[in-house]
């Protein structure tokens, strides 16, 4: 099967979206997990709140996944027939993938905040709500990254076209 250059660029965009997001989320979840294991070693009953805090930096990975899937659907890789994609549209998809991938690195900061949040929860369990909100703040920019990517996809007819 011969793929058009546009389709290839778009597929690279999908790969970057998922790949970078996976690295970033992995680091974030890792940072939080290390702190979480420390808290659990002291008090295994805190597993619930620790798990929720550790799950927060995973969301960026999901945004990366979503971005990749939207591109793959737009190009037709998911759904059977790969479409003829103009090269400009391919670059647009690549740009969308890059913005999601790069903005996913907020997961690293979010993991660090979640880790210190776990320390707070270990000492004072009632601070759990606040700890979650502090960590969620870091995700805002990843959401904006996803938003911009979606706007690119819509504007260039990769989505809904």
């Amino acid at each position, binding site marked *: 099967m011969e793929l058009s250059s546009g389709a290839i660029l778009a597929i690279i965009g999908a790969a970057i979206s998922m790949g970078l997001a996976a690295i970033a989320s992995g680091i974030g979840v890792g940072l939080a997990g290390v702190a979480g294991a420390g808290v659990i070693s002291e008090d295994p009953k805190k597993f619930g709140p620790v798990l*929720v805090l550790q*799950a*927060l930096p*995973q*969301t960026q990975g*999901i*945004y990366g*996944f*979503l971005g990749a*899937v*939207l591109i793959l*659907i737009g190009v037709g890789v*998911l*759904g059977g027939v790969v479409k003829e994609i103009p090269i400009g549209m391919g670059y647009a998809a690549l740009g969308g993938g890059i913005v999601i991938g790069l903005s996913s690195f907020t997961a690293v900061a979010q993991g660090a905040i979640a880790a210190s949040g776990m320390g707070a929860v270990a000492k004072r369990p009632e601070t759990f*709500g*606040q700890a*979650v*909100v502090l960590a*969620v*703040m870091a*995700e*805002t920019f990843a*959401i*904006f990254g*996803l*938003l911009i990517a*979606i*706007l690119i996809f*819509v504007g260039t007819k990769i*989505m*809904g076209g």
Partner: protein
Amino acid sequence: MLRPTRMKKLQILALEGYRDTIVKGLQGLGTVHLTDYSEKLSDPRWKELLQPHPLSPHVRKIATQNIALNRLLDLFERYDPEAREGFFKAVFAPLPPKKLESRGVFGAELIETVDGIVEKVEGEVENPVKDLEKIEEEIAELRRSRGLLELVLSLEIDLRDVGESDYLSVSIGIAPKEALESIRERIEDLTDNTYYLGARETTENKLVTVIICLKEHASTVLPNLRRLNWERIELEGQEGKPQEAIDSIDTRLMELGQDKTEKEQIIVDAARRWRDELKKYQEFLMIERQRQESQTKFARMEHIVALEGWIPQHSVTRAVEEIQGVSNGACVVDVSDPDDKDDVPVQLKNPKFFKSFELLTRLYGLPSYNGVDPTLFLAPGFLLFFAIMLTDALYGVIALVLGMSLIRGGGRYNEAIKDGGIILSSAGVATIIIGALSGGWFGGFGLRVPVLAALQVFDPMVQVIAFLLIALIIGLTHVNIGVVINVVDRLKTGQVWKAMSGNLWFLFIQPGLFFFLTGHKSLGYIFIVISLMLLFAGHKAMSMFQVTGFMGDILSYARLMALGLCTTGIAMTVNVLAGMLSVVGAIGTIFAVIIFLFGHLFNFLINAMGAFVHGLRLHYVEFFTKFYQSGGTEFKPLEMRFDIVEIK
């Protein structure tokens, strides 16, 4: 509504002799939050009149009794653990909690009764516990010896011969296999060839050795061998061949085991008879301790005791009657309004359904006494945001079912679980409505049913820009509501300038821009100029940041659309993956069903969590900052709250 319960300040002066009856009366009412006099007593004018009230002598006694009860309950738990419900059973289908009926036992009678019970129970378990300690010590020692004997099992010598006799020294030890030759050489050197060295295999790569040498050589040979990793095994007091010694240890262990079971049974019997009784009195002691400890908050002079506290306005009459009643009128009760300097405790007051959402307000921090209680606004906003971010009717059904099972399960006996259940099920209902309107039925899966497809008025995956605009308009409305609450609240409390100089400019700039852009330029200018004047008057050099701050706040609501699309997008992906597998044949269909179910369950869990935390965040960060003053102290009345005891 909209403000915490109105409180009155309650000041009581009473004869010392009525102190305990008044405290008992207040505890029975459960409506008075006592405050600490000691802060006031640091003021020299008060100091002349009143002294701090001394600590009740019963407090220490109660603490000691509590420790004794806990120790006994721990002992019972060790030998006769109580059945506990697992997490899911406790949350979804718990058994009714056990209740113990009792008449009320308080004060001196309580302390005497607990002393009696502790003495009786300790008398029953004291000897068995001591015996068990001895038995466990002996078992540990025997197990250690047995372990050593197993190492030397391959030696066929009588263990009575091990040790020193008149001329000879017989030692047993363990050494690595490869060290055998160097051990032999070393012994040869040190004993002038007067020795016996026997070796048999034991555990992997180790040998068990018997060394016989002249008694006078032993003191130089044995320390020397230690450097070659030879380890001596001490088997003093054992008789017969190793296997015989092991057999006799096993017999003894069996005897001890039986003995242990008997003693344990005595403790188990005691646990079954006494546990409930001990728990009951543990709870009575807790109530008594609160009562006695509350005295440290009082002040006194000669024969008078002074108390101060806060009481909800609607409970005043009943409380005053009760206090007058129990003290035969020998007291002065003064009820007054709080002044500005008072730190009045906060009790939230909301209608039934909204009460459950107080949980979310508390998560941020209680409002101050004179601030607005945001719960009434938070509930509908939170439900709407949650629904938009989850956008799938069937996910809403899952949330509704989970929420209902919480209410009908653990919610029957636990208020927090019930509140959580109410929040989750109402979020489920909201999600079903929004999901049906946007055509989300496990993604587009349910749209094959014509009725469901007919309900759809909006397609988030196609009308993406419209979705973004809706999110931003919702955001603008939400922020405006916050600003209006702030302005109204300040006008009501007479802070006119603060109301004007705060965020009022934001309410003027919007019609201004609207008129300007729709051609009514002069009207537009008027609003814009007023708005800018308010802005600069209120915020001076920081005005620019006010504008960017509000823009950021409203843009932040774009997450409603991004997360909504995220749920829809992933649901769609699950359906596409399942669809691709389902055409591969029977096995493919099975995998397709598995991927479909687990994929949607995963998507529900991850996005429901996202919808929950981001729904809260939009309230805490964007909405509350416009009007909310937190930092209230919780209203904690002196009360008689029994968990397991039921007073007859």
